[in-house]
């Protein structure tokens, strides 16, 4: 089977937009900024991805997902390249991505300019009730990209996506 996407990088990008981030399934690898580029040469598709953190353990799973999906759409050969530059940053997240994180219970990065990260943990809004009366439980959380916080209003703990 050779589908219509097989010759069109833009269509492949849109197809790959279906692949969720393995650790935050509510957003896609494209929305997270992990998916960087698609090149097509006959039946070979080369996809470029970049890790969020240097040691992001999800990279292997993401590459497998990309290969499986593209092979099912008619590519005989799929190459997944990993690049480190330009370095991934949370600044690449769009407002709609940030909203998706929020509705999933994760507070999105509080600052655009990541240089301000030292003061960032002072005013994070709770993704559940919106209160900014929150405090840090731990600088590190369930994955490399998150820290753990607590809302003093609704008393719920929540994940915060660190500014990076």
């Amino acid at each position, binding site marked *: 089977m050779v589908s219509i996407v097989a010759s069109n990088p833009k269509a492949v990008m849109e197809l790959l937009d279906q692949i969720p981030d393995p650790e935050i399934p509510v957003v896609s690898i494209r929305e997270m900024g992990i998916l960087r580029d698609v090149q097509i040469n006959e039946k070979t598709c080369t996809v470029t991805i970049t890790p969020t953190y240097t040691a992001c353990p999800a990279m292997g799973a993401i590459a497998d997902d990309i290969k499986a999906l593209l092979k099912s759409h008619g590519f005989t050969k799929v190459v997944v390249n990993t690049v*480190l530059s330009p370095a991934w940053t949370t600044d690449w997240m769009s407002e709609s991505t940030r909203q998706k994180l929020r509705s999933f219970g994760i507070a999105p990065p509080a600052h655009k300019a990541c240089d301000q990260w030292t003061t960032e943990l002072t005013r994070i809004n709770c993704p559940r009730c919106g209160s900014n009366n929150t405090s840090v439980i731990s600088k590190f959380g369930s994955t490399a990209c998150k820290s753990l916080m607590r809302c003093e209003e609704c008393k719920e703990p929540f994940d915060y996506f660190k500014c990076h």
Partner: protein
Amino acid sequence: MEKNEALKKFLLRLGDNALIQGHRLSEWCSRGPMLEEDIALSNLALDNIGRAQAFLDYAGHFYSNPQSADDLAFKRSERQYYNFLMAELPVGHFGYTIAKQLYISAYEELLFEALTQSTDDTIAAIAHKAVKEARYHFSHAADWCVRLGLGTAESHDKLGSAMSDLWAYTQEFFEMTDGDLQLLQLGIAPDQNQIKKVWTDKVNKVFMRAGYVMPGECHQYSGSQQGVHTEYLGHLLCEMQYLQRSHPQAAW
């Protein structure tokens, strides 16, 4: 020394520091003083191991017979490792680990900041990612220094003696070999003397915030630039390399 030889050695030092620190930090997994710190220390370990992978992978290109990051991690012997002596010291108690983290992450933040300007594109690319991680590691360590330093008499004393015991391993960070000087000329490696000045100031600020006085000059241990290590590295490698040595080529 040939430039590529100097670069290989420089990359091994970067990779080995990350690998050995990462391995030591991973020893805390399931043994942290509380759940949150167990997770924090494991995350620190993960960041280090990722960085080790990146630097060792690149170092492998400079061997006449190219080596993978795994080859370099699991098949070299003690004398072929160039990590700081401090990195290989046992984790000790929580305060001791925090003191190690403070010294090393303060250095790494400055080192990677400088390396983002490296004329070597691969090093600069890794540094751009690593600097953000190191900055976070430093803030974690500095916060704990203040908390333990201003905590109970016991926490103050335990952290204080760890920081002064480990001081004897700090000046080794800034040693430069002839190869490093050559890389400095080429804009690949930074000037460690510059880093040392800023590092001393940065660490001193934490000492003051945490209610300590920075140690004065004392005997300094050295040797890792020549692959000469403390008794602890051999034991660490025995454990880390056991599987690959007993079952060569084992993969998963």
